[in-house]
């Protein structure tokens, strides 16, 4: 039974230790994910918030984000690698950022859109300037969907760092692809299981964050609406 052999591979400490053990690969994998998601957020969050706030360019933004989603990451990373073979880590990050931007962009934009029109009206009525309205009303109100977008992006990046290992940058894809090349199926299945568990773990952590960032005011409003 192949899955039993995979578990056998997993419980062998020798496979976890050493310079190319699973622990090192796990660290590389997470480090890629963190850098990619941060860079993508720096690009996509201000853009999405601004388009949502100003109400201009929404259609273009959604269209561009959808077109980016169709770009195959393996193709993008191998292409960038051939353009600049001496910087594999950089091109991998660049390729993965393209993957991570659309969901964050969509989350930030949809987040601002989801803010109750009465709230923004009240903010205008109180004499808030455009910036104050953005920071004090729209950003807090958009956080759940925005973090939802980040969660989505992180999930896709965690899954796809495995694919990017094809150009030789480490991460959990390394032992998986090596296992495929040398026909070591238990190793392949074992590493696949680890990536799946990692993805579920990252998603769970961000789901908790998503629940925590709901502003108190909105929570109160929601529970009041639920009670009546």
């Amino acid at each position, binding site marked *: 039974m192949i899955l039993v052999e995979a578990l056998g591979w997993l419980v062998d400490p020798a496979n976890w230790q050493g310079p190319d053990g699973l622990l090192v690969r796990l660290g590389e994998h997470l480090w890629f994910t963190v850098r990619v998601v941060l860079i993508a957020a720096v690009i996509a969050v201000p853009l999405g918030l601004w388009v949502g706030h100003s109400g201009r360019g929404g259609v273009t933004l959604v269209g561009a984000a959808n077109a980016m*989603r169709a770009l195959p990451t*393996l193709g993008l990373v191998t292409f960038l690698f051939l353009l600049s073979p001496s910087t594999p880590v950089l091109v991998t990050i660049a390729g993965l950022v393209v993957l991570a931007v659309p969901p964050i962009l969509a989350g930030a934009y949809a987040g601002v859109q989801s803010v109750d029109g009465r709230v923004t009206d009240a903010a205008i009525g109180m004499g808030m300037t455009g910036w104050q309205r953005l920071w004090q009303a729209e950003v807090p109100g958009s956080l759940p969907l925005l973090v939802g977008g980040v969660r989505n992006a992180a999930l896709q990046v965690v899954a796809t760092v495995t694919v990017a290992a094809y150009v030789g940058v480490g991460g959990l894809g390394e032992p998986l692809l090596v296992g*495929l090349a040398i026909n070591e*199926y238990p190793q392949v299945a074992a590493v696949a*299981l680890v990536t799946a568990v990692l*993805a579920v773990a990252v998603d769970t952590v961000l789901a908790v964050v998503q629940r925590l960032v709901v502003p108190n005011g909105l929570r109160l409003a929601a529970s009041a609406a639920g009670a009546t």
Partner: protein
Amino acid sequence: MLGGIGLYLSSPTNREKVLGLLGEHVYLAILPLLIGLAVALPLGALARRGALLRTGTVQASSVLYTVPSLALFVVMPGILGTSITSPANVVVSLAVYTTALLVRPVVDALDAVPGHVVAAAIAMGYRPARRFVAVELPLAVPVLAAGVRVASVSNISLVSVGALIGIGGLGELFTEGFQLRYPAPIVIGILLTLVLALVVDLLLVGLRRLATPWAHAGVGS
């Protein structure tokens, strides 16, 4: 760059290979889309029978969607008993993703069917099965179509990952270009993937229009 693409495509062998891979890509992306839709429809309908079933189904599908594609591709042979190079691994994996992606839109789409229409259908004597097919399903198409479009883009982009296990449609142009240190096939693969995603998306929009004649009836008259 453009010269390189021209040169690559000037060889009849390469042209034939690219066309073959394009065909394989379409097959590997669309077949799972159809299977996934066929599974998600009854599953979504079932999920609406109770609050527990609903949250259970929606949550199970979101966990399934979390599993990385490459991981699912390589674990599939262990589950199905297929060989690692069998296209069935990719087809079944993508069908699982499609189902996971579509369960929620199916639930939402069926929720969006106006209750009075369903009540009228019941009053007219429609039995549950026929009511589902003839009344609820057509009215669910607009919301459902949005989900199917997302799933089709997702499938078309994920098929290329299969190239790492040797069954990847246009994705095989990426591995070939990388191994030969030759960008032309990679660029062709990327462009064709984008065009394919666009064409399938337009087809789905067209299908939705055909399936919802009432949505634009009277417009322009």
